[in-house]
């Protein structure tokens, strides 16, 4: 029954890897958009949105990703909506990513000299315009390296979605390990798959960090 050749295993894992990659991209892009919104609330001068954003970030950073997944998966089902593991995974991972990116970017925005806000205010820009045209372009430079670095966490986070039954790389590996009775080799290959995705990201994060530090 276990008539899987080595190349069958690799081919199946490659399919799982594509889903891992797709989920990572969706979560990263979606998380970036929501994260920008949360970050804007987090630095607001108005206490209500600021505290709301802070609670949001604390909640996602203080609880396991697995629980966030379960809550989205079972919570949306309670509303009477049939939700696929893929959608639940995408939503939960997007929210998770947005909380971390919001906090990373807040740090970058905070590191911009305060005089920049005052100078742009004196040019009659409203706070959002100040952020958009003066602060963010400068913060972006600082933000690139830690953002790329965090993308590694997003890719690794997708592994947890296998638990609610989304067939990405880890889930595929689990099924193959059961079918072939070769868990050592299969999980070794799964780890290699993640490494191939993450290591280039880690390297570029380090490279960007060094380059931006050198010219700063």
């Amino acid at each position, binding site marked *: 029954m276990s008539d899987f050749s080595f190349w069958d295993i690799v081919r199946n894992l490659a399919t799982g890897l594509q889903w891992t990659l797709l989920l990572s991209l969706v979560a990263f892009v979606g998380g970036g958009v929501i994260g920008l919104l949360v970050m804007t609330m987090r630095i607001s001068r108005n206490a209500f949105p600021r505290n709301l954003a802070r609670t949001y970030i604390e*909640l996602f950073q*203080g*609880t*396991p*990703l*697995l*629980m*966030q997944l*379960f*809550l989205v998966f*079972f*919570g949306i089902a*309670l*509303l*009477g909506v049939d939700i696929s593991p893929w959608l639940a995974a995408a939503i939960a991972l997007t929210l998770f990513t947005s909380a971390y990116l919001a906090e990373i970017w807040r740090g970058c925005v905070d590191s911009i000299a305060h005089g920049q806000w005052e100078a742009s205010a004196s040019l009659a820009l409203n706070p959002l315009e100040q952020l958009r045209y003066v602060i963010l372009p400068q913060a972006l430079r600082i933000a690139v390296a830690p953002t790329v670095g965090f993308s*590694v966490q997003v890719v*690794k*986070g*997708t*592994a*947890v979605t*296998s*638990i609610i039954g989304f067939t990405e790389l*880890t889930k595929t*590996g*689990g099924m193959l*390990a059961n079918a072939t009775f*070769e*868990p*050592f080799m299969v*999980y*070794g290959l*799964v*780890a290699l798959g*993640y*490494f191939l995705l*993450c*290591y280039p990201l*880690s390297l570029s994060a380090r490279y960007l960090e060094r380059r931006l530090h050198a010219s700063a």
Partner: protein
Amino acid sequence: MAYQFDFVPVLANTDLLLRGALFTLELTAIGAILGVALGTVGAVVRAWKIQPFAWIFGVYVELIRNTPFLVQLFFIFFGLPSLGLKITEWQAAVLAMVINLGAYSTEIIRAGIQAIPRGQLEAAAALAMTRFEAFRHVVLLPALGKVWPALSSQIIIVMLGSAVCSQIATEELSFAANFIQSRNFRAFETYALTTLVYLCMALMIRQLLNWIGRRFVMRNSR
């Protein structure tokens, strides 16, 4: 018809949740102590470029930091027995946590060691400190003091990450949650309460580590 929330069937199992939480804390405590110890060795070896160990630790750090904890756990629990190494599920969980935290803390503590000016060691030698005294008071404690907040965060991340250990049937908090919701069919309420317990544990560990940091680590460094 609107869904009626009912937390009573979950609260009836508070003892199971607490037992799970306690086990998670135990795993975290052992994992944190051994993981930071491993990280300290790795950091010294890497910072002082003691070959070939510096190279070995370098590869280890990259391998662990670029693969998911869940896969590391599966590799240890399902993969190692096929090499003839039998381990129980809680041993696998602890081993995975130690190996994971060891890699991250190697890099964190190394940054602390490298931030210590060379002159400090020369000054220690001038004060006739033995090499061990100098290492302890001039290198290790100040280095740990510098990176203590980052190290604390990493320990909390490992604690939260240990939730996936339920997948190999380690009977920690999320395992208890899975067990409870499989009997009362109140999945959302069960996981909501469990999430709250995790949040409390994260805040508690943060306070505890802050206290340890102030009391023992950052006493004479800034």
